[in-house]
């Protein structure tokens, strides 16, 4: 019965949505401290290549590779984050965009390691590895009535879902903590924040590095979901796409990033029936949104209204 419901195509779209949510959060977190970083494609690439190379050449388990990829991206985040403190607004955006391009060019030209623009193939696939592992424990997908193929896509989806929930839990908790308050104050007025005794250097680097970590994590997972990566996957198109998720959904609240990534990943799929017109519709939608709701679809006020309505309904 389960075998009939599970459609691998839907599961794969679901997995892409989840990866894109991670990427959107990687833009959201630095932005919540007033830092507009367009480096997510670059950090994603570092995570992807690190994990892919480690698992291909050293036969490491995927989860070790993914952790290493995310850490490599965060280390780069610290290295770049500290000098970038002197930059703000568009200047930081340009610098991080430049960083992403530098990383991409390194991937293209470091032939011996990255195979240049051809890209890396034969990256161990997350779903397959989980399948092997389950078989080792004596489990067969047929036992719950699904095909191997379905099991592979389902396991990827579930792993990603758990990770996204964990990341959301972490970020939301952090927002309601001392750290979150510090980041908000820096975003509103860094001078005021500094005079209240908030070490703005420290918190800005923390936020920037967290962004790099989430992007690196998403990149590493991307590599093991797709099984093939090339420098073109991490070009500035990707950086802009990820930024649009956050800006479209609403950059003031984290749920905005989630919504943006969800909606904008799903839309081209849903619009398949209008085939070549779908990117035109996508473009028009963005232009209209920026004109009508520059703060994004969701913002704090809108959410408050929802909550208010709901609690009023509850009383009745």
């Amino acid at each position, binding site marked *: 019965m389960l075998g009939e419901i599970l459609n691998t195509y839907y599961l794969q779209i679901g997995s892409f949505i989840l990866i894109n949510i991670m990427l959107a959060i990687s833009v959201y977190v630095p932005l919540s401290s007033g830092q507009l970083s367009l480096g997510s494609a670059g950090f994603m690439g570092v995570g992807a290549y690190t994990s892919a190379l480690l698992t291909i050449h050293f036969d490491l388990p995927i989860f070790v590779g993914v952790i290493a990829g995310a850490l490599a991206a965060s280390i780069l985040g610290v290295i770049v984050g500290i000098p970038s403190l002197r930059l703000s607004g568009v200047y930081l955006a340009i610098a991080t965009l430049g960083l992403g391009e530098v990383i991409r060019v390194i991937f293209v030209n470091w032939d011996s390691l990255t195979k240049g623009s051809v890209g890396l193939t034969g990256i161990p696939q997350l779903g397959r590895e989980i399948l092997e592992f389950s078989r080792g424990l004596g489990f067969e997908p047929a036992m719950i009535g699904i095909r191997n193929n379905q099991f592979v896509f389902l396991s990827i989806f579930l792993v990603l879902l758990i990770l996204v929930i964990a990341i959301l839990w972490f970020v939301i908790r952090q927002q309601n903590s001392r750290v979150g*308050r510090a980041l908000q104050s820096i975003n509103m007025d860094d*001078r005021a924040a500094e005079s209240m005794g*908030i070490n703005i250097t420290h918190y800005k680097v923390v936020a920037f590095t967290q962004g790099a970590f989430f992007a690196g994590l998403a990149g590493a997972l991307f590599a093991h979901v797709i099984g093939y990566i090339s420098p073109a996957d991490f070009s500035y198109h990707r950086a802009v796409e990820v930024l649009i998720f956050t800006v479209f959904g609403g950059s003031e609240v984290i749920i905005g990033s989630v919504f943006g990534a969800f909606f904008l990943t799903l839309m081209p799929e849903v619009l398949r029936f209008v085939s070549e017109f779908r990117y035109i519709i996508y473009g028009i939608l963005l232009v209209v949104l920026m004109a009508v709701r520059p703060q994004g679809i969701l913002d704090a006020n809108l959410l408050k209204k929802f909550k208010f309505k709901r609690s009023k309904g509850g009383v009745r």
Partner: protein
Amino acid sequence: MLKLTNVETFYGQIQALKGIDLEVNEGKIITLLGANGAGKSTTMKTIAGLLKPKNGSVEFNGENVTGLRPDQLLRKGISLVPEGRAILTSMTVLENLEMGAYQRNDKDVRNDIEDVMQRFPILKERQTQMAGTLSGGQQQMLAIARALLSKPKLLLLDEPSMGLAPLIVADIFKIIKEINEAGTTVLLVEQNAKQALKIADYGYVMETGKIIIEGSAQSLLEDPRVVEAYLGRKSTS
């Protein structure tokens, strides 16, 4: 309590402070006067750690604190209310006050917030409102109240009267006086020399990065140079 010796601060190549010597004694109100661009705010920022002096030393309670970070200085008891009421506009009044106690983790914070709201009843009334919706004078009061919640030994006020109506200015100065009487030492930067000298014990006058006149508030009020340049009337004597 606070002692600056030959402090020189630069903005890149430009020297904003050209050897400042200044002393603040415990329990007093000291005022720093001067025209725009004289270096008053730069002096304050240097004391609070927002700028690092190139030469000279800053001593606080006998300890050399030159070049420490703002958060370290706040922990030692120096709190700055920056120029232009730097409040957190999209947090509520209460949240702003809580942020003032950011570095504290003692149990008295709630009590102290209550105390501060007693002193500024308007803040209690507006506590759930966004700080950005307050009037200019209320925002300034919030900025001062917030600074008080870090329990400073020395309160640095950078032009608290800027852009406020005369009646509100009088209120603010009254509050500064009260804060001082409650035991906090105050260093006050002002353009409104007359008001500042009325409540201050001692004053310094700055011009182009140097201190040119200093003396008791009374003597400055009578000093013909101060009278002519900053109090806006011809010297009568």
